[in-house]
């Protein structure tokens, strides 16, 4: 038994210049960051005020910072993908190898979903939910901190793969048998499994935490049907996490057993069934989409009334629609694999169930529109994001319904039409929704608003960039271009170049947003906002009594660090390390109750 498992000095050798560049960058950035912290003397402050904090607001901010950092990584991946496809029209093969391209598109998807979108919504939820239900904090502050640090551990594992070994090259959902040992012998898929396994546990803990908070800690007199819409949609989203993530845990564990212990769940040999993986992972994967988008629906239900100076139209309908979406999202997962060969009955039933989700979603949109009706609409940036959201989301919704008709899906599935569709939903829904919520609630926490002029610039650049980057992909899909191609047919090149320009515009938008933050902080005196700058009637804006400082603990962060080590041990088959990390975490987790019995 080797002490270092399968890890050897060769594991550090990267094959391409781009990969080596990334490796050096991560090492330099990590050591640079740590050295700066130590020598600038901020480490102590950081530790005391932030890293060990159990305050939901600070945890929320740290989630957002994590999402920001990982977002930069995800965008860098996107840039590599877009430039490769724009330049690699045959006979040219671009600058990335097929394997490296595959690693990048896999990492891009994983990072954007698990380490950008999820932290973004958990960040917002952490910041706002306790204020909205007017409770002192969440139900389990320690578990809240633990969730954060486990998510960070997962994110670190993904980035560690840049330095040691490589990341999965089997796509963001690694279908077997490609992801089995026979076809993916490296550690890439194992990194994937453990990064997601750890982040998945974090999400599950958060879900329990926020459900308990919302159900048991609402302020006196706030009945369920008095809850603000953001609280309602968060409730729906967290119920989905609670019941969907165990399926992810199962499917990843089984894949790991196949790979590490020679079992046969999803292999094509000895009776394993790869289709079962596809079935199970989408039983998680579809609800996951609604986990991401539901809270942002809630954000718009807060933003639209505020800026229309009017009450939200059809509160009861909104609640019913939210819960309908929650329940329906568990009934549709087959639409991700209509083309696997199930019979017409199965496909039709799940196709129709999928379309049914368009009903409550449509109702929500009409309710927002009729909140604007006979209002006094002020177009501050959050409201602009809403306009951008509806305009793009309706397109995405229509293409989504197309994909849910099996007969049409046979021609659209796995093409870049599909890629355009889900980016349409995630960017138009989740990203724009987040920006609306972020701009809207920012003054509540910072005491000043964000610069409006730069905000509007960012908005227009984002919308333009999005349209330029993704509308061509719809057309390319209809031209028969499949996803995940590292070299492309020359006839597709012009539109791919347009898409790359679109990405450049999005990058410019992100740059403007960073500038907006910096400028706003510098002009905070001028942008100073009272306790309720938008004149909202929602409960989170009412002044709160000062909160007594919660006590701090570094235990959660230590468990996070151990989870990273344990995951690393699992990836490299250093079983002793994994067991040790688990045992120490268990002790750390068990000990506190002994102290205050």
């Amino acid at each position, binding site marked *: 038994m080797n002490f270092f498992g399968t890890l050897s000095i060769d594991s550090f050798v990267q094959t391409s210049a781009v990969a080596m560049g990334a490796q050096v960058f991560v090492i330099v950035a990590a050591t640079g960051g740590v050295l700066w912290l130590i020598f600038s003397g901020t480490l102590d402050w950081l530790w005391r005020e932030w890293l060990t904090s159990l305050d939901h607001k600070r945890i929320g901010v740290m989630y957002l910072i994590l999402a920001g950092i990982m977002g930069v990584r995800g965008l860098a991946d996107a840039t590599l993908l877009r430039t490769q496809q724009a330049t690699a029209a045959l006979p040219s093969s671009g600058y990335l190898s097929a394997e490296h391209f595959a690693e990048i598109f896999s990492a891009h998807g994983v990072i954007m979903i698990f380490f950008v979108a999820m932290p973004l919504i958990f960040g917002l939820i952490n910041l706002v939910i306790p204020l909205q239900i007017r409770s002192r904090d969440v139900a389990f502050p320690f578990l809240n901190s633990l969730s954060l640090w486990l998510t960070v551990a997962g994110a670190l594992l993904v980035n560690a793969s840049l330095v040691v070994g490589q990341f999965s090259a089997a796509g963001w959902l690694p279908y077997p048998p490609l992801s089995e040992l026979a076809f993916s012998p490296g550690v890439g898929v194992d990194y994937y499994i453990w990064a997601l396994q750890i982040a998945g546990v974090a999400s599950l803990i958060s879900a329990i935490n926020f459900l308990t908070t919302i159900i048991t800690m609402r302020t006196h007199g706030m009945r369920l049907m008095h809850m603000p819409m953001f609280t309602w949609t968060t409730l729906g989203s967290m*119920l989905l996490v609670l*019941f969907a993530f165990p399926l992810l845990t199962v499917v990843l564990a089984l894949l790991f057993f196949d790979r590490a212990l020679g079992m046969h769940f999803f292999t094509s040999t000895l009776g394993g069934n790869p289709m079962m993986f596809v*079935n199970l992972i989408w*039983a998680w994967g579809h609800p996951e989409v609604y986990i991401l988008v539901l809270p942002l629906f809630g954000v718009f239900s807060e933003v639209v009334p505020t800026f229309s100076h009017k009450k939200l139209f059809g509160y009861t309908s909104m609640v019913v629609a939210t819960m309908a979406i929650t329940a329906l999202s568990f009934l549709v997962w087959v639409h991700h694999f209509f083309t*696997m060969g199930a019979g017409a009955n199965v496909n039709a039933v799940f196709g129709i169930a999928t379309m049914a989700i368009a009903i409550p979603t449509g109702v929500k949109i009409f309710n927002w529109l009729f909140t604007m009706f006979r209002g006094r609409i002020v177009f501050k940036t959050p409201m602009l994001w809403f306009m951008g959201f509806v305009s793009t989301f309706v397109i995405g919704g229509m293409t989504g319904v197309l994909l849910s008709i099996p007969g049409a899906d046979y021609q659209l599935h796995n093409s870049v039409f599909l890629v355009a569709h889900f980016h349409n939903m995630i960017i138009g829904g989740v990203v724009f929704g987040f920006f609306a919520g972020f701009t809207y609630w920012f003054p509540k926490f910072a005491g000043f608003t964000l610069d409006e002029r730069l905000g509007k610039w960012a908005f227009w650049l984002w919308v333009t960039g999005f349209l330029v980057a993704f509308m061509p992909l719809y057309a390319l899909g209809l031209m028969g271009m499949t996803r995940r191609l590292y070299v492309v047919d020359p006839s597709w090149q012009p539109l791919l170049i347009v898409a790359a320009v679109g990405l450049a515009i999005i990058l410019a938008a992100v740059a403007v947003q960073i500038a907006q933050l910096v400028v706003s902080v510098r002009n905070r005196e001028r942008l100073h906002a009272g306790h309720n700058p938008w004149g909202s009637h929602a409960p989170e804006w009412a002044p709160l009594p000062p909160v007594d400082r919660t006590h701090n603990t570094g235990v959660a962060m230590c468990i996070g660090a151990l989870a990273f080590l344990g995951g690393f041990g699992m990836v490299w088959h250093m079983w002793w390390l994994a067991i040790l990390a688990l045992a120490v975490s268990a002790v750390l987790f068990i000990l506190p109750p002994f102290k205050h019995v």
Partner: protein
Amino acid sequence: MKKYLTGFVFSVILTLLAFWVVWVHVASNHAYLPHTFMLWAVVAFALVQLVVQLYFFLDIRPSRDSHTMVPFLLALFIIVVVVGGSLWIMQNLSHSQTTPFRGTPSPQNDLY
């Protein structure tokens, strides 16, 4: 106190009944009790025991507060959907795709 003992007695009886059915079936070399009867009997005993334990051990009853019941019912719904759905889908997938040589002997591969 009483509820645990009642639940226990009921559970023991139901367990023994389920085992007895299978035992009769096995001991008679599958002659007694048809397959389908046994299948439904075992499933029925399990379901009843499930309800018994939920009721007597976990205190799950319709009068419980909605905080407990709503997530419970939702979980039940999802379990039915996931298990039932998976079985239906997987069954359908393997039925609608044909595999060759019905009944022919094993293709022990002399291929390679």
